């Protein structure tokens, strides 16, 4: 079914995502609080005996990773929410409308990326208030860049979520996805430990994790440097990998969604 994209349809779906996000205040609070605990307990707790990593404090090292965690969970969940839409019917309302499925899914991906990034901005603010980043003019520029990076890395994960949500049909699969997809992506993204400090096999695994490059980019923006392993142009490599991942996932999610029966 080849149908033209409809900007109005994309806008509706996007607007719906934003409204729903905004109205689920308890979810926002829970997620911000969770990241706050991570930052405080790990940052000051473990940081107390680890000391510094490279030339930044453990808290500073941790912060971009925790922001990455918020982005990952937020975006994958909003992608997977196509399952809920299907289960609770709203999807039918969209599918019977004279708009293409591609418009619907692009709206979903944009909306998911936007809400997850808002989440990321909240977490970045928390980290800033905890003193994770040293204030300067470059940090100001870095923060703006970081917001762009957030939008970029979330789009691919929403796509992945949509792909998952279009494939699974029951809620029991959630536990599996959480254990085998989300947690490994999170743990291997270099949140807690630098990549050059782990055995080679784990290094390879980390290099296969798209979120690793996302966190890497956030570190470039907020701390001014990434891991030495990727060299002085690490940010360029990271950007390239994320761009490829995005194209792949958005395409994959759109394809699987268009194929799925209402």
């Amino acid at each position, binding site marked *: *079914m080849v*149908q033209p994209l*409809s900007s*109005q*349809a994309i*806008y*509706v779906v996007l*607007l*719906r995502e934003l*409204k*729903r996000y905004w*109205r*689920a205040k308890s979810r926002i609070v829970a997620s911000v609080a969770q990241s706050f605990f991570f930052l405080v307990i790990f940052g000051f707790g473990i940081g107390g005996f680890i000391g510094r990593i490279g030339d930044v404090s453990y808290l500073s090292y941790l912060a971009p990773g925790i922001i990455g965690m918020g982005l990952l969970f937020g975006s994958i969940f909003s992608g997977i929410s196509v399952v809920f839409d299907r289960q*609770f*019917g*709203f*999807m*039918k*309302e*969209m*599918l*019977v*409308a*004279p*708009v293409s499925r591609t418009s619907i899914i692009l709206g979903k991906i944009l909306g998911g990326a936007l809400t997850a990034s808002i989440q990321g901005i909240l977490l970045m603010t928390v980290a800033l208030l905890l003193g994770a980043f040293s204030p300067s003019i470059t940090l100001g520029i870095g923060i703006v860049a970081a917001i762009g990076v957030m939008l970029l890395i979330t789009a691919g994960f929403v796509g992945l979520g949509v792909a998952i949500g279009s494939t699974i049909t029951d809620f029991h699969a959630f536990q599996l996805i959480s254990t085998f997809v989300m947690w490994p992506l999170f743990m291997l993204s270099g949140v807690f430990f630098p990549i050059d400090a782990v055995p080679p096999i784990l290094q390879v695994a980390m290099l296969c994790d798209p979120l690793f490059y996302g966190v890497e980019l956030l570190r470039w923006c907020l701390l001014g440097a990434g891991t030495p392993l990727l060299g002085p142009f690490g940010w360029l490599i990271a950007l390239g990998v994320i761009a490829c991942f995005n194209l792949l996932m958005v395409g994959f999610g759109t394809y699987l969604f268009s194929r799925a*029966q*209402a």
Partner: protein
Amino acid sequence: MAIIEVDGLTKVFNGKVRAVDDISFNVKEGEILGFLGPNGAGKTTTLNMLSTLLRPSSGTAAVNGYDIHEEPDKVRRSIGFVFQDPTLDLELTGKENLNFHGLLYGLDRDLREKRIKEVLDVVQLTDRANDLVKTFSGGMKRRLEIARGLVHHPKVLFLDEPTLGLDPQTRRSIWEHIQRLNQEKNVTIILTTHYTEEADYLCGKILIIDFGKIVALDTSDNLKARLEGDVVSLAFKDPKMILQIRPIFEKKKWLRRMDVTSVGSNQSMAGRMMHMMRGMSGGMGMDGMMSGMRPESGRRNESVRHKGPNIQSVGPRRLNLLVDDGGRRIPEIVKLTNEIGILLESVELHKPTLDDVFLSVTGRNIRDEQGSFMEMIRRHRIMQQARGHRDSG
């Protein structure tokens, strides 16, 4: 003028289940057509095909002059669909749900404002428009869904079980809304239902569908007129007595047909399985209806006899006799039962209803059918939702 033309529409699931089996019919503009049938008869599948949500296995249809294969987009623009499962976004307000719908159908801001005001007025929800839908009662949600289906001024409105799980009062008010829509806006309406009284009250024409085939299509009055005579319905102190009395009635010339029906809707699983299997073996169709008119016609009677051992397990049952001049037969019927010492509990006399018509064309009582186990659970869930959150509305 026919606004919907259906030609040999067929849907086969998994290569073997013929959910809809080569159906053809036309609907005139401004008509209210009711699909009457038990669960799993193929009603929703037909609607899904007509609305382009589901691809037919073969056959085609035109809605508002547009072919469902060739111009699905134009078909979608011509129709409104109120689904059986609730499809409102509960986290949004009533107005937002309507506004999103308008946006999806490409209406500009002014037109949206105007239409939203208009449809809210039609279903009398103006004063609750800015509340979150999750605070609405079941009936209000249903009304809002109907309103939503109208925002883009469809030529045809599909209503899938519009009053499932609603209380009689709400049901009545929704019927009135549907009727008003049809009269004031000249919207052609196709609705599915398994409530005979709903089809009777609302629908100009009734299409009875069973195992994916059309078994009758006519006005309610014409359908009832096919069953000449009156229905005398007997209840016995001991339902097992039905077996004893049947052969005696069968010999009578004044008997046109005889059916055993259950009272209430709950049947044991075993009883339901029997029904399903019986229906599958006896290929239904128009000829089935004709032969069913005569009590002697083998298959129908045989099938009822098969049900014999089951009678006990399926709760209270009645014996329905279609007879000429019912009022004058009652004394004779009572006398016959007394002669062989069978105790009658009650005797009712009525003109044939749509229930009787349904029974005569499908060989089953519409209320017996509950569909698959999963279907029952799903329905239960819808009903719970419909009945939950009931407030002042």
